[in-house]
């Protein structure tokens, strides 16, 4: 009976999702595939942004963090909310105001030059593939838990289904299915929290407060100040304007919608982190044995909900993963087509290239999923490279009057190189020189951004000197 009700719930969910995806229709031209015709209303921009950032890290991962270190991670999550609000107020409207701009690489190309666009494209595609591998791993974990299938085949199913509708409908299909998936998880997961707090938490609010206090104290004592600073930097900068977010800023109906979508998504994240951490805190008095960070949410739901609700929540968790995965596949494919392929192919059929790139990135993600150890560490690794590689170049480029191409190129190259080299050095130190369990990526982000900024200033200065010399030569020759 339980199996029948579970299958019925899952079946109904899949039918509605398929209907929504089909209504999005196949993209007929590249501007539909990449920017959904630049006509997205506020609710869809907001829902899609939130659905993209609420991946496994900000749901399963944050519940696990709440279980281990209480509300410590809420403080760190606030840095993420602040980032979204600042991007909404300062950057997103400027991006949206650019004409004929499909990607971040396009924006960088318009402000600097074609070489900078290609480099930005390579970094964007690499980041999207890396993050997609993390999502594929998480989706595989959940589907394996539902079906009992081997991990590799679970990964394959999640990636194949997501790639199918993203390849056909592009950004429009991604945004529409994101909005549906957002509605599902933003209603069901907080509802699960309220049910746990009201019906399953013995001792009510007093127990909750006690557990929150104990866990937060434990978290603070287990985390060094330098790690907290590193994590704050990673959450403040690491995910800033990654390609799927930039695509939504560019695809908004107006600059106002672009700004408000980011600000609302930032405010939403505060409440979302609070709810996920609260689930983790509540789980401390319900789950007897520590199941491991990534399994706290699944174990909690399994032990408190009826089987049909458990099945529905599992499907919702897969939705959480798929809504992030589809955005990454689409953003990576659009970046490849617009920033890289268009430089090398003379008469590109952009739509076909975009569709093929979606499939290739999906295949890379499915293979790469094996290499991902934990969800949070996988996400942090990607953020660590992204922030120094792109942010100084992009943000300075959008704000100053005449950005110099050499400055952008040097900043992106040095930022990427510094992040990777520092990471390897710290890994060697913590593995052999001074062995200890520590998240390396957050320690890398600030010095690597510093290196990228110095490289930017040097590049800008070299070009200024060149320009002055040229002017002097011209005036002397006259």
């Amino acid at each position, binding site marked *: 009976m339980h199996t029948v009700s579970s299958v019925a719930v899952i079946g109904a969910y899949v039918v509605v999702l398929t209907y*929504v995806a089909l*209504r*999005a*229709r196949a993209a*007929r*031209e590249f*501007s*539909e595939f990449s920017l*959904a*015709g*630049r*006509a*997205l*209303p506020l*609710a*869809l921009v*907001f*829902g899609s942004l*939130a659905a993209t950032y609420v991946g496994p890290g900000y749901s399963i991962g944050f519940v696990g963090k709440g279980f281990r270190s209480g*509300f410590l991670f809420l403080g760190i999550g606030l840095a993420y909310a602040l980032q979204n609000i600042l991007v909404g107020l300062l950057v997103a409207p400027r991006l949206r105001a650019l*004409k004929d701009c499909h990607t971040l690489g396009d924006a960088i190309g318009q402000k600097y030059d074609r070489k900078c666009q290609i480099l930005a494209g390579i970094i964007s595609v690499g980041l999207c593939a890396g993050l997609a591998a993390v999502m594929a791993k998480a989706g595989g974990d959940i589907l394996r838990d539902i079906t009992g299938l081997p991990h590799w085949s679970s990964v394959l199913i999640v990636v194949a289904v997501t790639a199918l509708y993203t390849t056909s409908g592009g950004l*429009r299909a991604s*945004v*529409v299915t994101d*909005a*549906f998936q*957002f*509605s*599902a*998880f*933003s*209603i069901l*997961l*907080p*509802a699960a*929290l*309220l049910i746990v*707090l009201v019906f399953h938490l013995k001792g009510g*609010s007093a127990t*909750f*407060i006690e557990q*929150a*206090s104990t866990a937060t104290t434990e978290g603070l004592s287990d985390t060094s100040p330098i790690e907290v600073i590193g994590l704050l930097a990673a959450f403040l900068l690491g995910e800033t304007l990654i390609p799927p977010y930039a695509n939504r800023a560019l695809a908004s*109906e*107006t600059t106002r919608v672009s700004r408000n979508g980011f600000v609302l998504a930032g405010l*939403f994240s*505060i*409440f*979302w982190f*609070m*709810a996920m951490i*609260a689930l983790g805190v509540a789980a401390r008095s319900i789950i007897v044995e520590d199941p491991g960070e990534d399994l706290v949410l699944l174990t909690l739901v399994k032990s408190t909900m009826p089987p049909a609700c458990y099945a529905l929540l599992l499907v919702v968790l897969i939705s959480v993963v798929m809504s992030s995965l589809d955005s990454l596949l689409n953003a990576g494919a659009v970046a490849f087509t617009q920033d890289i392929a268009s430089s090398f192919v003379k008469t590109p059929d952009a739509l076909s290239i975009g569709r093929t790139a979606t499939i290739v990135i999906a295949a890379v993600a499915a293979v790469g999923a094996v290499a991902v150890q934990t969800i949070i560490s996988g996400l942090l690794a990607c953020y660590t490279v992204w922030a120094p590689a792109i942010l100084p170049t992009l943000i300075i480029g959008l704000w100053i009057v005449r950005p110099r191409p050499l400055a952008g190129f040097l900043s992106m190259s040095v930022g990427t190189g510094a992040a990777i080299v520092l990471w390897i050095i710290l890994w060697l130190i913590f593995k052999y020189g001074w062995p200890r369990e520590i998240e390396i990526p957050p320690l890398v982000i600030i010095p690597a951004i510093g290196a990228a900024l110095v490289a930017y200033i040097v590049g800008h200065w070299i070009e200024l000197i060149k320009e002055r010399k040229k002017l002097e030569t011209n005036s002397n020759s006259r």
Partner: protein
Amino acid sequence: MAKLLYILVTIGALFIIASGFWVALTLAKVVSSKKITSKQKS
């Protein structure tokens, strides 16, 4: 202070649920009217 945290968590959960319904309603309108057009807006 402690009670306040509990109340905040509850209000936060209700806010998230309300956001979910808002997006769901907009999506229903968009899907039924095919509002996402292929026209390029600048």
